[in-house]
């Protein structure tokens, strides 16, 4: 907490978030911060804290996903000596250490239901009692919660309490993923480059030139700011942007998602007629065929290995899964992620749809 990371960004969404923080930090109303992993939810929480009139008090953080239920409960509320086996001495909970300050509850979507009701009670009454104690303590904490889950979905699935959601969601700050705000990337690189260069003064790492910067801005950054940050940390040791790119997952793929039919002739045209057998001789359709096949089998292995791997049945499954997934997402988006509507349209049972969604890892966007 000595030097909290500033909120970096020049995109309109980040500017709006900064403005929002500035307007609400003094109100100390419960806040829910949402966004994908690595977008900087804790940085936003820290900024709120820093701009509030609680900045002289504690900022206490607790990750609700990191601890088993019973431990999470004792971390939150503390316990009296002898409350349970092993409770040799009294221990203060986070609600007490965060008194007059901020309690940042990360991954709130992972909090077990039983603890959610207790949490709701504390937020309603401002009172809690440590485990094994019959005394009620008054607490004045500013609760800032964060999650990468869609809590509205969790409510439908009955894994999150609706009443708790509304109590936390008094103010909501949604941080968009980095791929939706590439204009923030240069500033982030600048910041982390300076920061890590200070830690590695002997590093020969160089700032990205314009071409590299362009590549960096085009990359979709599935791990968001944290991934970018780690890359720059690595750069200090590797000293080479090319090596960094090599290590990025699917660094060549143009942004994933909606681009199924690119018409860019970027494949090495004219070069590789070698693999394509007799059928169609023009390299264009040969390339297209290889591109389609390579989506399902690894063409870089030897033919023997390749022929072992190929079976129509297997490919059929892979291909139909892929199309099914896209169709499911397409329909869900059309009906605003109403799954029972989508199931009707797709003419499958609701259960089948849910099963397929989890099989293909299809999740609604965090709104």
């Amino acid at each position, binding site marked *: 907490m000595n030097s909290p990371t500033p909120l970096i960004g020049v995109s309109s969404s980040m500017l709006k978030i900064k403005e*929002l923080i500035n*307007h*609400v930090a003094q109100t100390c109303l419960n806040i829910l911060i949402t966004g994908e992993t690595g977008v900087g939810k804790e940085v936003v929480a820290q900024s709120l804290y820093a701009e509030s009139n609680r900045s002289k008090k504690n900022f206490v953080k607790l990750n609700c996903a990191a601890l088993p239920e019973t431990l999470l409960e004792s971390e939150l509320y503390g316990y009296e000596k002898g409350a349970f086996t092993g409770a040799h001495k009294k221990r203060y909970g986070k609600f007490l250490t965060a008194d007059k300050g901020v309690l940042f509850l990360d991954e709130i979507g992972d909090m077990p239901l039983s603890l959610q009701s207790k949490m709701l009670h504390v937020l309603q009454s401002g009172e809690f009692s440590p485990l094994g104690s019959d005394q009620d303590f008054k607490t004045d904490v500013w609760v800032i919660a964060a999650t990468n889950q869609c809590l509205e979905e969790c409510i439908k699935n009955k894994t999150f309490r609706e*009443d708790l*959601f509304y109590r936390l969601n008094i*103010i*909501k*700050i*949604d941080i968009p993923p980095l791929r939706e705000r590439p204009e923030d990337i240069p500033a982030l690189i600048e910041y982390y480059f300076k920061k890590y260069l200070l830690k590695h003064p002997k590093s020969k790492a160089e700032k990205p030139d314009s071409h590299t910067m362009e590549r960096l801005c085009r990359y979709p950054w599935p791990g968001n700011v944290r991934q970018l940050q780690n890359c720059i940390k690595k750069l200090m040791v590797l000293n080479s942007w090319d090596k960094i790119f090599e290590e990025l997952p699917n660094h060549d793929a143009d942004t994933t998602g909606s681009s199924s039919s690119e018409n860019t002739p970027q494949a090495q045209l004219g070069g590789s007629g070698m693999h394509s057998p007799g059928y169609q001789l023009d390299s264009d359709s040969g390339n297209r065929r290889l591109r389609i096949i390579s989506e399902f089998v690894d063409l870089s292995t030897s033919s023997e290995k390749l022929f072992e791997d190929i079976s129509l049945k297997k490919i059929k499954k892979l291909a139909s899964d892929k199309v099914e997934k896209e169709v499911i997402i397409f329909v869900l988006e059309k009906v605003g992620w109403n799954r029972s509507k989508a199931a009707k349209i797709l003419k499958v049972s609701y259960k089948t749809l849910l099963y397929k969604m989890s099989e293909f890892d299809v999740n609604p966007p965090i709104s």
Partner: protein
Amino acid sequence: MANPARLLIVDDNEDILSTFYEFFNSLGYEVKTAVDGFAALKILRDKPDYFHCLITDLVMPNISGVGLISIVKKEYPDTKTIAMTGYGDHPGALASEARADIVIFKPVDLFKIERKVAELIDSKED
């Protein structure tokens, strides 16, 4: 009314917003609108104590209606607040807890709201 009563109406549904605007405007109110809580808060901070009454939806992006009402009650205690909710009891209950002057359930009857607004503003002037 020599001095028209000034309303701030907040809803993320622009159709509802324009309906409200037309309705209250035609009755001689001075009406400002905002599409979410944050936009509303900026208007309020810009013109402190200007509005006689805030009419707000509860479930909205960024600052919710409950948040907005809490802020208004604290920072602009003279402004009356009316919460509109269509999403079950939870936000409505929270709005009451935040001391909204009136909580009404959607779909709303515009004439009824207008009567409430007039009552609230009158009661203040007495």
